[in-house]
């Protein structure tokens, strides 16, 4: 899927002879279906994400749906991938490569919490409904957690001298953050996620830097945020 896909307009193409090449039409239909799936699953849950609801929202025929996806599970998995790929791409853009690890964690979390609060349907798909959509969705979620763990794993090098961080710690941090975020989404508190930044930052840093180091790094980072600074 191309990076600019997400900016395609949601409106259906004009019917009849519009002169667009076939592949453009299919691409537009696919994007509309994925966005519709995110909106329906985000509002009604995976259980309420029927093919009828998705095609109605996307203004795409049932026949077209089944040309593109085997069933609703297949469509959900594609929609999940769509949300996650876009999220990881934007997360990468929000991070400064040469910033210290703790500053990258702060910037990444700050971006993620704001993005989730601004996109509640995507948030629910990524952190709640993915668990309900069957084994393939669970595999994707597992892979996504592994990708996030790689970003967190850079922290092992930031640990104080003499402390060896177990290799499973990055994955534990990802699990902790996703549980804390998922629980708030399930309770309808998605808009308040950005308030959690200091606490989640502590939870991300402490397993590597230790409690005191995490509090200092988090406080320093938040001071520079308050001052409008983006450095470490």
């Amino acid at each position: 899927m191309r990076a600019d896909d997400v900016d395609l307009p949601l409106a259906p193409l004009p019917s009849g002879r519009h002169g667009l090449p076939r592949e453009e039409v299919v691409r537009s239909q696919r994007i509309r279906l994925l966005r519709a799936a995110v909106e329906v699953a985000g509002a009604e849950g995976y259980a309420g994400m029927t093919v009828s609801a998705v095609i109605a929202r996307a203004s795409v025929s049932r026949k077209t749906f089944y040309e593109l996806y085997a069933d609703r599970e297949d469509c959900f998995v594609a929609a999940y991938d769509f949300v996650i790929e876009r999220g990881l791409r934007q997360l990468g853009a929000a991070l400064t490569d040469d910033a210290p690890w703790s500053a990258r964690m702060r910037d990444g979390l700050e971006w993620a919490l704001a993005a989730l609060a601004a996109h509640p349907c995507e948030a629910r798909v990524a952190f709640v409904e993915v668990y309900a959509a069957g084994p393939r969705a669970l595999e994707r979620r597992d892979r996504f957690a592994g990708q996030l763990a790689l970003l967190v794993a850079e922290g092992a090098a930031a640990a104080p001298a003499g402390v060896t961080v177990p290799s499973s710690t990055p994955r534990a941090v990802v699990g902790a953050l996703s549980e804390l975020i998922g629980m708030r989404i399930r309770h309808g508190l998605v808009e308040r996620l950005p308030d959690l930044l200091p606490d989640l930052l502590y939870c991300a840093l402490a397993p590597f830097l230790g409690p005191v180091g995490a509090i200092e790094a988090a406080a320093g980072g938040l001071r520079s945020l308050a001052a409008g600074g983006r450095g470490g």
Partner: protein
Amino acid sequence: MASDGTTDVLEDDAVHAPALARETQRDRLLHGMAATVSRRGYAGTPVAEVLRAAGVSRRTFYEQFADKEDCFLAAYDAVLGVCTERMIAAYHAGETWERGLALAYGALLGTLAAEPEFAHLAIVDVLAAGPRALARREATLRRFARFIDFTRERAELVARPPTLVGQAIVGGIHELIYSQLVRDRAARLPELTDELLHYTFMLLGVSRPAG
């Protein structure tokens, strides 16, 4: 609190033995549910398959349970009950709170390793079993977080972590158990004990890492 290691040995024997009885027809149905759902997922588990795995009649099933969900929740409660009981007993066998927590983690991981199908049901399949199962799961995580908070009251802290740190510890532990279970590596869960302790102590704000 035995300091000669007797308690540890007893605990080890206890946590590595199968945890759940198979005596009654109800027990057999719970085992049948765990065996089936851990292989086929919740949505892919028909009651007929549970009956076959349990060797129990449909009539008996419906004398015991209202429906598939009811049976699933009973299996969930059964394995969680055993885990909780063993964790509390193990914790109290520790001469210090750190040792108690280590024993409690060992008891949890050992119990799950000894009952891989129930472990899969309680950690993985519960996520797909509907709103009542999710509510059950959330209550469990909250209870475990309170257990962590309780042990924290006995700790000498070098820092004051945020109040949600108990939830973060439970979330992290859950993730590590989950990622072993989806890879069918339940037998390796007990190897995680030290890593879970390190993670816990660093987040709790205890001066020294686990050892």
